[in-house]
């Protein structure tokens, strides 16, 4: 059967990236040239990261990321571009996520709550067979 392709995120094209000059451009000029990043580092002066990936969905298999491009722009303390690196899908590590969740004491609706809540509202489908 036919796979469905989908792309997510955004990575600036090579022509845009070529306009950036290491050691000269600052955060603002980078922002104007190639737009703001899809995500950034933890600290205020962390790096800027542009992530673009292409996914393939085939039948009942889990959607698979077939290609990913990460453009990492790191800045020095002065906010001047220090380095522009590219990462691919192969650089990523397959990480087992930990299942634990911080308890958020939001109680969802319970089965009994929903069962009793729907007393009285009726839909015709039950009567007419």
């Amino acid at each position: 059967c036919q796979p469905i392709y989908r792309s997510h995120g955004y990575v600036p094209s090579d022509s845009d990236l070529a306009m950036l000059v290491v050691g000269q451009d600052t955060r603002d000029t980078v922002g104007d040239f190639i737009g703001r990043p899809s995500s950034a580092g933890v600290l205020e002066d962390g790096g800027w990261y542009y992530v673009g990936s292409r996914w393939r969905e085939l039948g009942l298999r889990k959607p698979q990321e077939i290609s990913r491009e990460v453009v990492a722009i790191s800045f020095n303390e002065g906010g001047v571009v220090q380095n522009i690196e590219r990462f691919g899908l192969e650089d990523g590590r397959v990480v087992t996520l930990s299942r634990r969740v911080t308890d958020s004491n939001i109680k969802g609706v319970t089965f009994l709550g929903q069962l009793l809540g729907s007393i009285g509202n009726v839909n015709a489908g039950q009567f007419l067979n």
Partner: protein
Amino acid sequence: QTYSFSDVQIEGNSRIDGGTILSYAGIARGEAVSAGALNDAYQRILASGQFETVELVPTGGTLVIRVTEYPTVNVVDFEGNARIKDEQLSSVVQTTARRVFSPQQVEADAAAIASAYAGGGRVAARVEPKVIRRDADTVDVVFEISEGRLSEIERLSFTGNRAFSDRRLREVLDTKQAGLLRIFVGSDTYAPDRIEADKVLLTDFYRSRGYVDFQVLGVASEFSRERDAFFLTYNVQEGQSFKFGQIRTVSEVEGLSPAEFERAVRVRSGATYSPNAVDNTISRMEAVATEKGLSFVRIEPRVTRNDRTRTLDIDFVVANGPRVFVERIDIEGNATTLDKVVRRQFKSVEGDPFNPREIREGASRIRALGFFSQAEVDTRPGSAQDRVIVDVNVTEQPTGSLSFGISYGVDTGVGLALSFSEENFLGRGQFFSATLNTTDSTGSSSITFVEPAFLDRDLAARFSAFYRISENDNSDYSMRLAGIEPSLEFPIAPNTRLNLGFKIGQEELYDIEQLNSSAILVAEEGKQDSFGLSYALSYDNRRTGLNLNGGVRLRFGQELYGLAGDVEALKTTAVATAETKVFNEEWTVRAEIEGGAYTALGGTQSRVTDRFFGSEMRGFESRGIGPRDLDVENEDPLGGNYYAVARFEAEFPLGIPEEYGITGGLFLDVGTVWGLDNTNGGLASGCVDLNGDGDCQVDDEAILRSAVGFSVFWTTPIGPLRFNFSRALAKEDYDLEQNFDLTVSTRF
């Protein structure tokens, strides 16, 4: 000059205490206060809206604040209102009991009541507010209303229309001329806001017929002295009708050829210009762009007019749109529904390029969930100008139903029904239902559970188990069926889904009335286990297809029995349905062809529990058609290995205002059931030829039956009902007709 007060004295206040007035004034003791500050304090006290008059009199070291309070409203009453009830009026009026009385507010309320009446077509209504002083500080407010008669539109005429007659244009408008049934028809009353809506209808009517320069110059309305009859005249300027000139598709995006977009154009040069055709083409081109994974692409129609040839040349330009990203998707109002159930309806992810079409499709998928009475999806600017935040505001509606009571099936009679079904089980979007229905001749219980996003993929896992008994339901034998049917369904291509599953079941045919039942049935008595694998391909482009108000739905499924159990057979079913809207989208026309074949394998023969009865054919009872053994007393229906039904129907408004939710429909069903493995009927004890055809063979030929009828659709709070009145055209004398049926009209 400035003052400084060591003491403040407040006079005249009885209800509001001094502390409150002081906090309004905002002057502290002993503080230096200029004249300007004094005036501000005065303004603030007045602005609190509690006092009729306020005076600030500085006398030496003390500031005297003399106030007279507004009285409070004790009771608000309405007299003389017959058409609009008190509750509706009190919602319109701001003045309420226990609140401060203010004369301006009462005047505003009187005007609000008058405009409420004008909106309902009673322009002649008069409202007089009366204030009755009970004692020093409380008043009663009474609104005396004289409604006057309903002002109806006697005549509706047009000037300046050359291309279309007054009568044709009157059909276009919502507002109707008062005719014979003026008391019942509401749309002939004069309502100012309806005039605006009619102008839009008139403009759309002309624009979609090529009159690009059409304008409504003005609407003159005079009314008779008693203000109950109106004469409306629409003054229009038609201009010329334009045709499509040269149509071109141009791409301004480098490296993108317009060829693919060219195929999506549905506008032919020479045809009459219509804005819908242009919009339709644009959304088709957008669909092509999304399929090719292009982001930030926009389709711009550039129109060039040449008046001499009265044609419009249109260039569909594929251009680079602005670079905008989705910053956040915020979902609010989901009280019980989990966030992921709504969020997974969007294919776009936070941080993706903003694709308005994708967000619109996500919004329609959220509405299609059926969990929300209202689902508003709109975007607002984000933290930067190239960022957008998608706001999803939903209001939940009850999705569960629990009922124990009486059920009525037209042909199964009255029965006990106990059922619980929940479409949004525990807010996870899962479907769960457990039902138990018993009538005098049938009994069925079933449990169904569906997880639409199994393992967080677009993969619907379904598990259903059923147990059904039918004792002599329109026949002289009984059947007991039980089965478990788990299945998985997932998309294999855009608009196409594949369903894989298996069925474990047991069918039993028992207490066949030996004396006058057909030998065929007697031979089939007994219990059989079945184990089968099933697959079904379904294609459905109604919502996402390129033709926006129609679509095609195909379904082809096969079940292979025989890997285990006693049944060895291949059962094939197929349905093809096409639907479209005609007569500017008021009529829905639908054609459907359905068929099935049950071929027993390995030398076995089909049994009545497996065969088809064509129960979906309207005009006949559930086992009404198909081969029968006419050489026995019971003339039991035997069903057939094959069936084919064609249905043609149209649904159209009956002119009754929308709010009643009643529309009408016509239908024609043609179909037949045929084919038996064993056709030698007659009594088990030997052939006694009753129908005089010389032998005991059962006629299992494909004899065409047809029925025609009309139906009434009524959307009620408990669900969309459909009343079918039908009459058979071609039928066998032994078929069982059914002229009336009441079903839930499923919107496919």
